[in-house]
């Protein structure tokens, strides 16, 4: 039996990456932990505060509200984007000249920078000069996303759906293309209808890619900042102030480093928990 070759020198090649990660990720994270237990009034003078900021953030109505808004937003876009993405993927051709056309069209929104998407939708939805805003108002529906919370929410959700459904489409499409023809032939012989084919062949075969799609969309939407910031600036009032926008307001607007650091870590822990849950689910799928 051949013994496994061990080369301890390999560690030296890993060392630069370890140092780089320590410098740009690990030490900054440690700094955030360090700031979360202190208070500063500038001039690099810090005072020990213990767990005061954590307690303040956990009991803060403002944090609860932005967390709830964030969860509501993420839930809403997942409910829309996942079924819509699957539906579009199902209607896309698998063979022929239209395949590249569809793929390019689907990929286009993903290529646009987030701040450009925000600016585009801001102009598009303006009630006086925007195509969408003006059309809705012309239909007799009063619509102004800069003043009406419901309109602001709908516009933000619509913008996200426009920007990111393509990702779900492309993933679901990849899952669909990976299903061998033999499955469809067997279904045809058994006389299965299109619903049965979807329910018992396509959906189970897409399970893995859909888990990844849900994970990616959850994480991205849970950390969304640029698009709603450019579109609504968190307003009107605080109605579209999601967690990251609130965090930036605390950290940079108010320069409350301590509470902002505590909030970041709670935010980070929630993200880490969700990642772990999805990872566990994915691994379970792999085993099945």
């Amino acid at each position, binding site marked *: 039996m051949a013994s496994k070759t061990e080369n301890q020198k390999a560690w030296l090649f890993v060392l630069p990456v370890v140092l780089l990660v320590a410098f740009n990720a690990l030490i900054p994270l440690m700094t955030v932990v360090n700031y979360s237990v202190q208070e500063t009034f500038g001039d690099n003078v810090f005072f020990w505060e213990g*767990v005061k900021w954590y307690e303040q953030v956990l009991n803060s109505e403002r944090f609860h509200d932005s967390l709830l808004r964030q969860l509501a937003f993420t839930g809403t876009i997942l409910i829309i984007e996942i079924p819509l993405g699957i539906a579009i993927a199902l209607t896309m051709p698998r063979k022929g000249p239209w395949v590249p056309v569809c793929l390019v069209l689907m990929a286009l929104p993903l290529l646009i920078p987030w701040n450009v998407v925000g600016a585009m939708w801001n102009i598009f939805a303006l009630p006086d000069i925007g195509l969408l805003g003006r059309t809705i108002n012309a239909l007799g529906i009063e619509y102004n996303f800069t003043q009406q919370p419901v309109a602001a929410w709908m516009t933000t959700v619509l913008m996200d759906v426009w920007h990111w459904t393509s990702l779900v489409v492309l993933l679901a499409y990849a899952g669909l293309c990976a299903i061998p023809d033999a499955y469809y032939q067997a279904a045809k012989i058994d006389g299965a209808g299109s619903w049965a084919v979807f329910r018992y062949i396509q959906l189970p075969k897409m399970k893995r890619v859909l888990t990844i799609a849900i994970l990616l969309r959850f994480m991205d939407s849970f950390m969304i900042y640029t698009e709603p910031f450019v579109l609504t600036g968190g307003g009107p009032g605080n109605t579209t102030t999601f967690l990251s926008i609130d965090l930036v307001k605390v950290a940079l607007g108010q320069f409350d480093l301590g509470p902002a650091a505590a909030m970041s870590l709670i935010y980070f822990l929630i993200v880490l928990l969700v990642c772990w849950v999805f990872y566990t689910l994915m691994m379970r799928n792999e085993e099945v």
Partner: protein
Amino acid sequence: MDFSWMAWTWPTLGFFSFIALCLIAMMVWEWKDPGGGPRRGILTLETTRGDRLFISLLGSAFIFLGWLWVMSTPLWGGLALSLLWIVFVFRYV
């Protein structure tokens, strides 16, 4: 080198030293008993010692936050619950 501008505190150092010690202990454990000790616990998923440490630490963080939110300071109760949680995870997960 002077790191005073980074305003490090002893409790922060203690916290990260604890994490580092946990990792070193896991390395020693792995060296003594290689393979990671995979098993299927109540999650019905194969977990290694490293997975169990991660679940313990993440769960403990939430226990502390929950304690702080509901019971406020001091955190001794949260610490006791976290220790129980860690024992539970290493025994049954």
